[in-house]
């Protein structure tokens, strides 16, 4: 029998990026908040020691900071005819674990999705007609650009993002991204200093008539004091971002931006190494009364709360809803139900160029250090004569130039021995790459549900991912690979290798941790699990915050939009919901 604890105003499941932001905003509004976090407490000063944080074997190869499958695994299949099998190790994507979540080990690419993303169905229908997207389950997000823009601004200033505005209140700015939607002000910090490869890429792209700009970065170009008074350091370009925590206080994370203030508040508490099993509803299923969790000793507790905020990783948010029966499971056959709907991923390919006599020095790197062109992203280019919609940002980043993982070699190089050694030494200094990170659009048959066979250590069904790259996205990616092939020509490289994405998603090699959807936001309760404020249509005192709310994934990294949605939901809760609890949008 679970021990029932005193009631809190709000119970947060997961203290990562969104949980920290929600906790900060709700405690500011005077609420008593507890966050229940499955993983360990983590703090820069004690856990991210700059003197050993660059241990590539420990962190990048052995994945020290990540969720391990013995804690929670998932099952995978490409289509409904297959029997899903559990991932025995996380590969294609790497969910975070512990306080700070995936925000601890991210790279720091901080994008804003576009105006045309939030109203994607309306936009594409108007421009190309409904038939163009008839095979896709694209839908508007319910929130408009003008509504959400201030929340992007809040997140960027919280993090101290380094970048250059491309569109200030409708005025195109030289040096920025001309395709971005209008922003209300400049980035809080100037762009990072560019390494040689990115500089060469930008120069070559510019000569070809494209519009390169510095990738907006949560690695800080200079020391910064954020609006909460938290101080951050300047990035040292050490190149240990992805899969690592920053020991330098120079990569924005919950630890470096929010927690120093949040943890001192008397109306906030975090319980780490406590795993929420489910959200408990009243018998009519319309109100969440508490969450049940196990502490590190396996003791069961029930934590009542007036509001429950599900702030875990996108895929875990969906699973928590399904385990708690918040909303109805999506059925790909009938299209009924909303939880699990519109699961999307990321559609990427890359180009690698080999030169002679260069010194690219890739050890001078950072997680989000590079130049991008968005000329082929989203709907920045005309799709009327093309057999797909969507696109990709093409970025040349200098990152992960690390001794174990970064060994680019020419095709045909032996895989071991003296020749391999020589080739890796040559390849390290003489090669550079750029890649397309493409949109992932929803289709009827890509979805999430509970696995009928496999369970976790507590006997709960695992999440089942049914996914393959839709034909639309494959066509998009091939088009982007064609463009990249053309782009490689003026570099006059000794050799250029451009990859082409194939059908048949493989969950083993690492691709991207950008899993989105499954609890998407929208204006129609028949096609969205949460309303435009990320409030459950079915259980109005539950909010589900994260990339799970994305109605589709754009050709951009999700965290900027995740952060904006966190501020957006927090504002709705603090200014609307707590004054008058109940559904904020009438179904």
């Amino acid at each position, binding site marked *: 029998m679970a021990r029932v604890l005193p009631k809190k105003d709000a119970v947060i499941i997961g203290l990562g990026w969104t949980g920290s932001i929600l906790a900060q905003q709700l405690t500011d509004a005077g609420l008593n908040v507890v966050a229940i976090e499955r993983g360990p407490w983590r703090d820069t000063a004690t856990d991210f020691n*700059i003197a050993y944080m660059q241990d590539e074997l420990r962190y990048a190869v052995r994945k020290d900071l990540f969720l391990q499958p013995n804690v929670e695994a998932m099952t995978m299949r490409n289509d409904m005819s297959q029997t899903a099998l559990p991932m025995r190790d996380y590969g294609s994507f790497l969910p975070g674990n512990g306080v700070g979540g995936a925000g601890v080990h991210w790279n720091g690419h901080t994008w804003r999705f576009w105006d045309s993303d939030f109203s994607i169905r309306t936009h594409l229908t108007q421009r190309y007609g409904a038939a163009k997207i008839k095979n896709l389950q694209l839908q508007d997000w319910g929130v408009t650009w003008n509504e959400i823009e201030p929340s992007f601004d809040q997140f960027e200033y919280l993090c101290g993002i380094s970048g250059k505005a491309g569109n200030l209140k409708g005025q195109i700015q030289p040096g920025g991204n001309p395709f971005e939607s209008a922003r209300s002000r400049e980035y809080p910090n100037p762009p990072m200093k560019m390494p040689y490869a990115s500089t060469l890429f930008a120069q070559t792209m510019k000569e070809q008539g494209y519009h390169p700009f510095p990738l907006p970065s949560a690695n800080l170009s200079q020391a910064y004091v954020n609006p909460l008074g938290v*101080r951050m350091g300047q990035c040292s370009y050490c190149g240990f971002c992805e899969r690592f925590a920053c020991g330098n206080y120079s990569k924005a994370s919950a630890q470096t931006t929010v927690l120093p203030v949040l943890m001192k508040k008397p109306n906030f508490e975090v319980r780490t190494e406590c795993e929420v099993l489910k959200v408990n509803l009243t018998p009519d299923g319309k109100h969440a009364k508490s969450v049940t969790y196990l502490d590190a000793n396996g003791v069961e507790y029930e934590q009542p709360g007036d509001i429950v905020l599900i702030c875990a990783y996108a895929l875990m948010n969906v699973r928590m809803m399904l385990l708690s029966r918040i909303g109805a499971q999506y059925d790909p056959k009938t299209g009924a139900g909303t939880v699990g709907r519109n699961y999307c991923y990321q559609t990427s390919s890359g180009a690698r160029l080999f030169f002679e006599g260069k010194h690219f020095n890739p050890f001078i790197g950072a997680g989000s250090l590079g130049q991008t062109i968005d000329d082929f992203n989203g709907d920045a280019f005309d799709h009327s004569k093309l057999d797909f919609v969507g696109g990709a940002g093409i970025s040349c980043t200098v990152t992960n130039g690390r001794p174990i993982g970064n060994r680019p070699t020419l095709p045909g190089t032996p895989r071991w021995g003296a020749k391999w050694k020589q080739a890796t030494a040559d390849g390290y200094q003489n090669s550079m790459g750029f890649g397309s990170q493409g949109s992932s659009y929803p289709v009827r048959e890509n979805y999430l549900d509970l696995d009928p066979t496999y369970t976790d250590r507590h006997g709960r069904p695992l999440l089942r991912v049914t996914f393959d790259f839709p034909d639309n996205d494959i066509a998009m990616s091939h088009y982007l690979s064609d463009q990249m092939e053309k782009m490689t020509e003026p570099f006059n490289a000794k050799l250029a290798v451009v990859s082409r994405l194939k059908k048949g998603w493989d969950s083993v090699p690492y691709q991207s941790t950008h899993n989105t959807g499954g609890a998407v936001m929208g204006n129609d309760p028949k096609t969205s699990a949460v309303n435009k404020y990320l409030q459950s249509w079915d259980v109005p005192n539950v909010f589900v915050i994260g990339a799970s709310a994305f109605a589709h994934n754009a050709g951009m990294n999700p965290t900027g939009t995740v952060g904006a949605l966190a501020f957006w939901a927090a504002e709705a809760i603090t200014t609307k919901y707590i004054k008058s609890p109940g559904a904020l949008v009438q179904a």
Partner: protein
Amino acid sequence: MRSFVLAAALIAIALPALAANTDAGKYQVALGDCEGCHGKNLAGGVVLETPFGKMLTSNITPDKDTGIGNYSLQDFALAMKRGVAPGGRRLYPAMPYPSYAHMSDGDIAALWDYLRTVRPVKNSVQVNQLRFPYNLRFLMRGWNYLFFRPVPIGDASKSPEWNRGAYLVNGPGHCGACHSPKNAFGADKGPLTGASLQGWFAPDLTSDRNAGLGSWSRSDIMEYLETGRNAHSLASGPMAEAVENSTSRMTDEDLVAIAVYLSELPPGKGNGGGATGADAQIKAGAVAYDVSCAACHGRDGKGSVLFPPLAGNASVRQVRADTLVRMVLAGGKAAATHKAPTGPGMPSFGWRLNDDQVANILTYVRNNWGNTAPAVSAETVGRIRSALHSGS
């Protein structure tokens, strides 16, 4: 019923007065940094390492069995100002009664009123764990006879701010408990010229321009005490606690007073000058510094809004480098305050740098960018490393 009404009326009258005085008393807890030694809940049991052995701090909550619930105001005042507990039991000056002796009766009374309102905690503490013969409490009579000289500290020729500052620094603030060097019997000698304790070196607070605060403006001193940081330095170690528990909670007026007083302290003896004949150490240290330290502290030693500068940082230029060695070997965490909430950490480099490397880096840091201070030897680093390993 009647007595209930009467009692309610009495409470109604008494409460506002009590509330005002408990606020004043709570402020005295901050001024005196009671939490620093007696713990957040004031129930004691915190270990103090002294040169004479280990002491545990006492329980000062109003618990009748294990705290000071049976004290009267007079008992309390006697303990605070004379070091004598009820029954004539002598306190050890680790409880800084030689400083508190300067406190006004009003402040003592306010503190007493507040302490009676805190939650009583049952926590029996075996305070005296000193080595023989220091564990003999009656010896403190002799100590008091020899060293306890509660002389007035005011100076009518000075400004009211200076006088308030003198009171705060020497009275409730008991700054000298850490910052004044001690004689062989643990009594203060030489005011606030810096001292070693518990493996740290509490820096010189005099107006000496090299080792002291001579290059700090009064607003620098205030900013440091209020936030834990300023353009020259960052509080860590025991001072981080003192800032968090005490100085960051002081009023602006009191911070001004302390700044005025400290800025007028006559310079101490300095740090004995720069390293001589240490060119090889400095050269090797420069290279090692660039590899291990420059990413945060800067090649120019100027730090940033987050990380402390090493150039012109008085704690880098103390006569003894204990604090620096300790920070490099074991790391540390800076003060986190309302106005500077980050509390950045210095990671431990003890596992990665050997004694020679640490000595070289610190000798370089202490003699570069305008700093001058004596060289640090590998033996010193080794001694501190062993002390850290043995947990003292």
